[in-house]
């Protein structure tokens, strides 16, 4: 944890994320009613409405703040479920091997190779619109990626001595997976969770932008849906779609930053690369030399 706090990327990414989480939790209490008709439609930013008004006369700031709640909560729920299913399928395939692995790997690969968006659209179009449906669709189309990552890690872990020791000691497979294998891939699971959350937020915004969510709810995706429906581009009202886009981008960027920081902590080679290249640069040595020698005999 100390190492995490001293990493600039982790600190910066974490700060953005905490800001948005706070905004989602308590923000709606401080802004106007996001659905209320509070002013003339399509007004540019002013003192009354810091980010202007939408085509329906709603406050853009209020909508952006209120949208965070639904978008972030669905993102986190989907992220968690995707990793849970991925861990279950991945460890089963990786640990048992043989025909179990063959069958599960084929299923994982089929889901991986199918383009996500058309499948999501078809699923979402048949389900009744609402946050539950969106979450279900995202879980169905997103689990395969984390299952693949977990499977390859489980494959390498099951060959380790401590797993063999547990097997010889007569432990049941379920216990070996839960006690020996899963705890040893905590960092992988955390990074898969962050990646899956990022995917879920982006995909949810995309689906709702297409009008496949509940269009009367206030989320980041429906904000953008209404912005295009109210001809934001034609009327030049950039303030109706820029704040939401920036919010999505900031959240996604912070998640990427946190994930990179975790990677660097786990893999010192990545961390030192920049310092190494800088140190070489100071001494006017190109890092491409096969064996850079930093200290030269004087």
């Amino acid at each position, binding site marked *: 944890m100390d190492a995490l706090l001293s990493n600039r990327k982790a600190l910066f990414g974490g700060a953005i994320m905490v800001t948005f989480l706070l905004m989602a939790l308590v923000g709606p209490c401080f802004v106007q009613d996001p659905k209320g008709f509070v002013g003339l439609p399509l007004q540019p930013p002013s003192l009354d409405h810091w980010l202007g008004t939408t085509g329906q006369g709603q406050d853009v700031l209020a909508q952006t703040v209120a949208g965070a709640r639904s978008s972030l909560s669905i993102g986190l729920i989907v992220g968690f479920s995707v990793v849970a299913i991925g861990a279950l399928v991945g460890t089963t395939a990786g640990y048992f091997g043989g025909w179990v692995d063959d069958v599960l790997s084929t299923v994982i690969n089929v889901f991986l190779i199918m383009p*996500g968006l058309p499948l999501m659209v078809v699923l979402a179009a048949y389900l009744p619109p609402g946050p539950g449906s969106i979450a279900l669709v995202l879980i169905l189309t997103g689990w395969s990626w984390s299952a693949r990552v977990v499977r390859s890690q489980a494959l390498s872990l099951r060959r380790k001595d401590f797993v063999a020791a547990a097997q010889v000691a007569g432990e049941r497979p379920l216990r070996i997976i839960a006690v020996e294998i899963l705890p040893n891939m905590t960092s992988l699971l955390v990074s898969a969770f962050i990646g899956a959350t990022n995917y879920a937020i982006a995909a949810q915004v995309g689906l709702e932008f297409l009008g496949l969510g509940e269009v009367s709810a206030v989320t980041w995706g429906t904000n953008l849906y209404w912005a295009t429906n109210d001809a934001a581009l034609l009327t030049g009202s950039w303030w109706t779609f820029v704040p939401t*886009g920036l919010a999505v981008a900031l959240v996604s960027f912070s998640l990427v930053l946190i994930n990179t920081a975790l990677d660097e902590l786990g893999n010192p080679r990545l961390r030192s690369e920049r310092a190494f290249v800088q140190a070489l640069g100071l001494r006017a040595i190109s890092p491409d030399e096969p064996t850079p020698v930093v200290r030269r005999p004087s």
Partner: protein
Amino acid sequence: MKYVLRRLLFYVIAAWASVTLAFFIPRMMPGDPTSTMFARFKGKLDPAALDDLRAAFGFTDGTLLEQYGVYLGNVLRGELGISIEYYPATVSSVIGNALVWTLVLAGVAVVISFTLGTLGGVLAAWRRGGWLDSTLPPLFVLLGAFPYFWLAMALLFVLGFQLELFPLGHAYDDRIAPEASWAFFSSVVGHAVLPAATIVLATMGAWMLDMRNTMIAVMGEDYIKLAVAKGLSPRRVMLRYAARNALLPNVTSFGMALGFVVSGSILTEIVFSYPGQGYLLLQAVQSQDYPLMQGLFLTITLAVLGANLLVDVAYAWLDPRTRQG
């Protein structure tokens, strides 16, 4: 050969799985699938034609297994039913018309993006820590954080609506007849530039970072040191020795990324009202045109599977190790 056959088997399974998914999704949903699917046809079709359409989707009398058999036969013959939105055109003809535009737009964009991204990755890895390496990767990470379609909206807004440098949508100027003339051709190119640029911008980063990382790994290999030691020109070492070997793993990720590119180009087409598969998909969603939606799902999925198969064949041809094993 064994490798290609094994991959072929996998794609047959994947194709069967997607066709089966398209069959079961409407049947697993709450409510009566036939009435959801065909309610919008009421008044447009006479009852006999409606029965034909039900048959096209396998909604016939009989057990689920029999329905499935009828449906599979129809899909194999390319009979995907009739579109509601474009009634009385068949789904296959509507999709066929739009397919050309998607292939032109996404095809050109993918090739440009892969080439530029790979070259960028090679140069960034070669001058590691140089200006290219320290500016482009963070920039692309930042760009990648924005939703794909939002970038398209922002570009269209600034370059199309505000600066009026590019047309605002559609594949060509309505005033020009689609014929083999210079005016038509230049109009098509002019309309494709901005949507294609969006796809390139949004997908290039991933390929660049991939290529950069594999390049760095390859550059640590002994044969690179040997090539440098025997005095080959840096250019030759970079392109003939390092880049060539680093390209191989990237070819497989090319196949994997295709699905992502297709999903992205669907959203891009929607923003630019570009008359391809994506725009059609949006229209199908908005008018609840379920036959068209399902046809599009099948076409897009099968196209991505086919492209992946081609990539695998190319991989087997490029990498001799797969042929031995």
